[in-house]
């Protein structure tokens, strides 16, 4: 099968890969680039485990045709932490026990980051809507919602400074 070159920025770094005809972005990220943080769940755009941010918007990488991200900026969980210093959302997820099996966590974090980038002081309803496309079969969502609200309030950053 013919492959086509695709160039995009991933977490700030330029990437150039060859994508098979019809290959989705999730496969390109995991197999082509080696970024294993976005997860394969349903492959149908239903579970949200593959959520990434493309040009500032939350997107499902499993139903994004790889060729359509040519020239765009893609963000994944791999780009959240600054070395050993966790992103406030990651810190809040840890403190609120917002992950159990952890499979949904990368998608949840990126859905939450897309929300906070656009709306730094969301209401609880805003948070519920922001993760409404992300399934979690472990936590019952409460811990995740509380973690996102906590991160938005700046509590995580304050906690880290202590």
């Amino acid at each position, binding site marked *: *099968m013919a492959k*086509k070159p695709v160039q995009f920025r991933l977490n700030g770094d330029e990437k150039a890969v060859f994508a098979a*005809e*019809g290959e*989705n972005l999730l496969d390109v990220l995991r197999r082509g680039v080696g970024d294993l943080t976005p997860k394969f769940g349903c*492959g*149908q*755009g239903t579970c*949200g485990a593959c*959520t990434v941010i493309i040009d500032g*918007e*939350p*997107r*499902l990488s*499993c*139903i*994004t*045709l790889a*060729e*359509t991200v*040519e020239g765009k900026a893609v963000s994944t969980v791999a780009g959240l932490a600054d070395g050993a210093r966790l992103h406030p959302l990651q810190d809040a997820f840890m403190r609120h026990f917002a992950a159990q099996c952890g499979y949904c966590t990368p998608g949840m974090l990126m*859905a939450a980051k*897309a*929300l906070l980038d656009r709306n730094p002081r969301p209401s609880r309803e805003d948070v519920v*809507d*922001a*993760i*409404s*496309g*992300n399934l979690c079969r472990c936590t019952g969502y409460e811990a995740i919602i509380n973690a996102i609200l906590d991160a938005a309030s700046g509590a995580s950053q304050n906690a880290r400074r202590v």
Partner: protein
Amino acid sequence: MPLRVETYDRIEDAARALSTNRNARVIGGGTLLMRGVNAGVQGFDTVIVVRGGQSREIQSDGARLEIGAGVTMASIAANADLAFLAPAARVVGGPAVRAAATVGGNLFARPPFGELTTALLALGAQIHYVGHGTPQSIDDFLRERGRDRTRIVRAVSVPRIGDPSAFRFVKVTRVAPKGAAILSIAAHVPMQGGRVTGARIAVSNMGPTPLRAIGAERALEGQPLSDDTAQRAAAAMMEGLSPLTDELASEWYRREVAPVHLRRLLLPNHGR
């Protein structure tokens, strides 16, 4: 089926390619098309990509609004001029789906999807094609949808709804708001002199495309929007409609609950 992806810089070139290949599909946000591609059972052999996407413009000439085929559900939900369409756009998937899913893609959505198209049918939308000056009514578009896939939709246009109560929409689902619809109903009920004039009721999952509930429209026409009228419209709603049976609901269930939801939609404050 081996898949070929063709990318075009100009939409006119993409339209030419589509017109000569019945097994090609134009990709919008990909939220529906890529499901088939991932499963390897897409039923087409070529995906046509318009570089940079299709038109994301929303234009107004006063009485009508033209929405580019590349406008996303998120953009509709955020646009003040299209506030009447927001209830239909907001229930299409979660935020990541709404950021990608386009008007053009939704027009071709198969059951149980296609909430926005149900709303557009009730609004009497017009479909505008690339390279064709004459628009097509959405009724004709949906009738021919399965047969004629050789033209690219450039935009849809809808009347501007001045009175928000004249247009109502409900999606019935087991997992609100993002779950697939058991059914959705859109009702355009303009009032003149206290009576319904020019009612259009559209409902999804009653056939391969959203369909008009002609019986309900007839019951409403020329009548005040009263409890009696709503009851009569609900009783006549299923005339000529054949609800689907799928994993979400049976034909029987859809036939039983659709009139209940229409009555509630027409009289939202009834019994509260």
